[in-house]
């Protein structure tokens, strides 16, 4: 599953990244680093900029300041000489292909079956042959425990099943990095476990992952690094057991007392 890349270099590296919407500064000089093959959990209160940060990583948003790179390549810009050039849409799309994203509200394509959802991008974007894409798609459905559901439309799947299809859809592009934006927040409590299990399996297989979540149990068990964000800044980060067990900042404590 893991792509052999330049070892040592972090998969995601953010160096004083800032982002504003109008006068609202949503990300304030964020610096962090996710090594290849590791899992980072990003936690924090609503509105603290977690989603925006994920969206910057796959260039659904532009960063205003600082440097953000994935696998050693600058996101959204090209550096030539001492100037930065904005990427053409086609080049930006090429960068996104290698980054899988899973959304809170699944965002499966409702007019396509589970299997069609999965093979759409490999066929259209990566020009994979249909047969090969379908074989791979079935394999992925089996991996997320939904081999039986390839012909089901999203409306006929439970939330947990939809989210697992969404994960399979992202994996079909063979990404080197997976971003999860509150993947279980829209699920009924009894369906959370099945999605987290799939994510655990993925982490064990060596996938580099950034997971925005309120599931502290998952963070403690799976994350190599836990980052607490509030008001657009990284308040605290480190080993999950450390941060959760012995938070150093008042804001972290206040937040954790609400979610734990």
């Amino acid at each position, binding site marked *: 599953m893991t792509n052999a890349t330049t070892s040592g270099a972090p998969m995601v590296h953010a160096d004083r990244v800032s982002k504003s919407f109008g006068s609202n500064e949503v990300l304030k000089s964020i610096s962090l680093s996710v090594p290849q093959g590791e899992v980072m959990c990003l936690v924090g209160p609503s509105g603290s900029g977690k989603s925006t940060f994920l969206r910057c990583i796959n260039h659904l948003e532009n960063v205003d300041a600082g440097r953000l790179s994935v696998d050693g390549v600058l996101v959204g810009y090209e550096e030539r000489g001492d100037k930065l050039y904005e990427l053409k849409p086609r080049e930006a*799309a090429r960068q996104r292909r290698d*980054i899988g994203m899973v959304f809170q509200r699944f965002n499966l394509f409702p007019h396509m079956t589970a299997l069609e959802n999965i093979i759409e991008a490999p066929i259209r974007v990566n020009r994979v042959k249909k047969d090969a894409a379908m074989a791979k798609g079935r394999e992925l459905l089996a991996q997320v425990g939904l081999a*039986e559901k390839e012909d089901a439309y999203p409306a006929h799947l439970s939330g*947990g099943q939809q989210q697992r299809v969404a994960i399979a859809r992202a994996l079909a592009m063979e990404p080197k990095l997976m971003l999860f934006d509150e993947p279980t927040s829209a699920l009924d409590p009894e369906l959370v476990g099945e999605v987290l299990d799939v994510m655990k399996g993925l982490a064990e297989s060596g996938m580099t992952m950034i997971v925005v979540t309120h599931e502290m149990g998952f963070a403690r068990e799976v994350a190599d690094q836990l980052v607490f964000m509030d008001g657009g800044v990284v308040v605290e980060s480190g080993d999950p057991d450390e941060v959760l067990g012995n938070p150093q900042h008042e804001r972290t404590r206040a937040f954790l007392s609400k979610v734990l």
Partner: protein
Amino acid sequence: MAAARSDRSATPAQVSPNGVDQAEAIKAIRLRHPWRNVIAVILVAMLVLFLVDASQREAYGWANFGKYIFDQRISQAAGYTLLLTVYSMVIAIILGVTLAVMRLSDNPVVKGIAWLYLWVFRGTPVYVQLVFWGLFATIYSTIDVGIPFTEPWLSFETSDLISVFWLAVIGLALNESAYMAEIVRAGILSVDKGQDEAATALGMSWMQTMTRVVIPQAMRIIIPPTGNEVISMLKTTSLVTAIPFSLELYGRSRDISVVIFDPIPLLLVASAWYLLFTSILMVGQYFLEKRFSRGVGQARPEKAGTETGAISVKTGVITTPGEASDSSTDPSGKEHR
């Protein structure tokens, strides 16, 4: 359910034979509506009177109606009416999609031009527009190909290049495209933004996202009002006499009536044909609306008995059209023109 029943059987004393304790059905005297009946009788009587009178009235010229209803010139004219409808709707839909996409563009100039187009074509009567198209060859007597303000390479007589029929098609299509643009725009806006985002995040281009993800979902919103537009267009074709193009139903029956000095039966002939076509289209429209008002997406009932099939779908991810972020334009509720 089963649990409730077994609870009941624990106290068998009050249970009736079918297992449910039922009250006696109400046998009340039905409330009478005397005025309703009176009004109905009056209305029916008036209608019958009118029909009897109409069937005997000279001026309707039923003999001529019978003579011309299946006249070959009339059925050919009906063919022209259908051609005008089909060609102008096809062009209007293509142009309408283009204009809708232009209106949703980030480029203010592109957006502005689309807005200007809609402003002009929705802000003037279609009849007046058609008269203008009729004068097209007068306004632009030649069409020149070349570099502006230099001697043209090629020069065509406009009247040789575009027939009156095509002027009629263009006139109808350009007017209609302004309305189609609003319908398509409402359809595109009805698709959840998350769909766009998911497609983009998968590396799909704007064009792929539009054609594979957004438009297929927008269709559910776009198709029913488009059916209405077709019906409306069929009737609007009668205005192309303004061009003047007169080989379609209304123009043709007018021309015949001038020759035989009997306008009324031919108006009835034309009306009968219009009614036939609109009735067929309305039946089609009925089924279209039934088809497209169904539940969510293009979901089909899944084969029963698979896995934990009973898990609820109430986490409802798929947005319904009503959730459109910008639903200021109601495609069906447009003003009359």
